[in-house]
């Protein structure tokens, strides 16, 4: 088997006296779409932020393409729920930000930016500023900006959580298309069971108190997946039971 793109080894994270994550192990192969699923406080965002390099691990380690993570870097692109776009830059310049920051010549930056403006279907809005865009359009820019920077690992922290249902469905579709075409590796945090089953090759179920991984479920349904099919619902029931039995244990404790 080829070298995994991501190895997480006994990862733990503490904030002062609060233990947010304990003993997380995860190996991700190149090209996999992984969803981290769990209720708030289960450590899924913490795990993502440690992989991104925004937070240092308290225990264990994270290795990306053979190199231990010591801080943020352009190889790991993050898509935030609140977009994190640069309000003073146009759509095109937001997307060209990474290539420019890495010192590419401006002709090259412009070429890359235009290509990814097109990839996410925002050509007509290339010169618009973020405050002129809808939430769905902003998130397209955030995705394009990560793609334009050649991120090998795309980290997404509930990226569609703030969008309306219809926009969310369309973006989920577009994301799957881009993922398949560009052979991306995606680590996607969500608390929505349906979203996880719709998108993921593997769903990592997490649970709070302290945050830890409880299950690693492979989703073998053929794509494009039909959320109303009996097979889909079968998986949904299984994952739902897993999350809820966990809650009950917690309530009893």
């Amino acid at each position, binding site marked *: 088997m080829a070298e995994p793109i991501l190895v997480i080894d006994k990862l733990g994270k503490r904030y002062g006296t609060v233990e947010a994550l304990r003993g997380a192990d995860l190996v991700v192969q190149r090209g996999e779409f992984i969803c981290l699923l769990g209720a708030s406080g289960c450590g899924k965002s913490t795990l993502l932020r440690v992989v*991104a*390099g*925004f937070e240092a691990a308290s225990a264990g380690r994270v290795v990306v393409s053979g190199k231990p993570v010591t*801080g*943020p*870097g*352009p190889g*790991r*692109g*993050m898509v*935030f729920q*609140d977009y*994190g*776009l*640069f*309000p*003073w*830059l*146009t759509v095109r310049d937001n997307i060209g*930000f*990474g290539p420019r*920051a*890495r010192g590419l010549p401006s002709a090259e930056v412009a070429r890359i930016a235009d290509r990814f403006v097109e990839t996410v279907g925002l050509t007509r809005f290339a010169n618009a*500023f*973020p*405050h002129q865009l809808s939430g769905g359009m902003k998130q397209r820019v955030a995705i394009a*900006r*990560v793609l334009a*920077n050649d991120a090998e690992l795309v980290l997404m922290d509930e990226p569609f959580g703030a969008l309306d249902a219809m926009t969310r469905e369309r973006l989920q579709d577009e994301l799957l298309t881009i993922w398949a075409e560009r052979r991306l590796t995606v680590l996607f945090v969500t608390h929505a069971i349906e979203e996880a089953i719709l998108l993921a090759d593997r769903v990592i179920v997490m649970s709070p108190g302290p945050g830890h991984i409880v299950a690693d479920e492979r989703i073998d349904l053929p794509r494009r997946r039909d959320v109303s099919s009996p097979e889909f619902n079968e998986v949904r029931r299984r994952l739902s039971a897993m999350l809820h039995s966990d809650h009950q244990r917690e309530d009893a404790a």
Partner: protein
Amino acid sequence: MGAALRSAAAPRRLLGLIVPAILLVAWWLATSRQAYGLIPTPGEVVTALVDLATGDEGDAFSGRLPAHIAASVGRVYGAFLLAALAALPLGMLVGRLRWAHTLLDPLLQVLRPIPVTAWLPLSMILFGLGARSAFFLVALGAFFPILVNTIFAVRSVEPRLFEAASMLGVSPTRMFPKVVLPASLPGIFTGLRLGLGFAWVVIVVGEMTGVQTGLGAMIMDARQLSRTDVVVAGMVVIGALGFLSDALVLALGRRLLRWSPSHG
């Protein structure tokens, strides 16, 4: 819809003239009945303004307005520029570097409430009677609004933007030019605008230091000669220049900060 809004904006702007018109009539009613009162009538002020500008009467004030305006405008913008040159880098240091904040913030907080007028005597001792003192006082008036707004602007950059920039490959040493500076421009701009406004506010105090020309000096001279028509004319000119100066800055901001929802 945009066009309809624009065409509605013109009459709405005219509405803003109603209250000044009423005040003008009230002023005229209150002053026109008594001859040689202490407060001049609107007509007398207009006459004074014309005489100041063109110089028909041939007294000490005739035709001197352009010189006074040139002196005050030069002083306001010169002192404003000096204040900005000092306050912008200082504000960025105090706003972004913990040690600079610890070192300087208490001092700045104590100096800030001291009014410019209170500095007047000390300023005349330090800088002597005249132009240098006036320059210092106007610069002081502009300094604190710029400083306080710059500190606030560079401190309140959204933390998310640092994360976004770092994951896109910006190193910590490049954060300032790539993120902090552009993100804080709207706040810094507000500080510059307030600072320039304050420079106009304190110009009269600044020119109490014994300078020969300048609108403040003119008003002081006129006061001693009981030429209240010239005093009021000077007030009108300062008001108009301050307004024009602010409109200019606003237009500039609208062009430069098109991206900002609160400016564009």
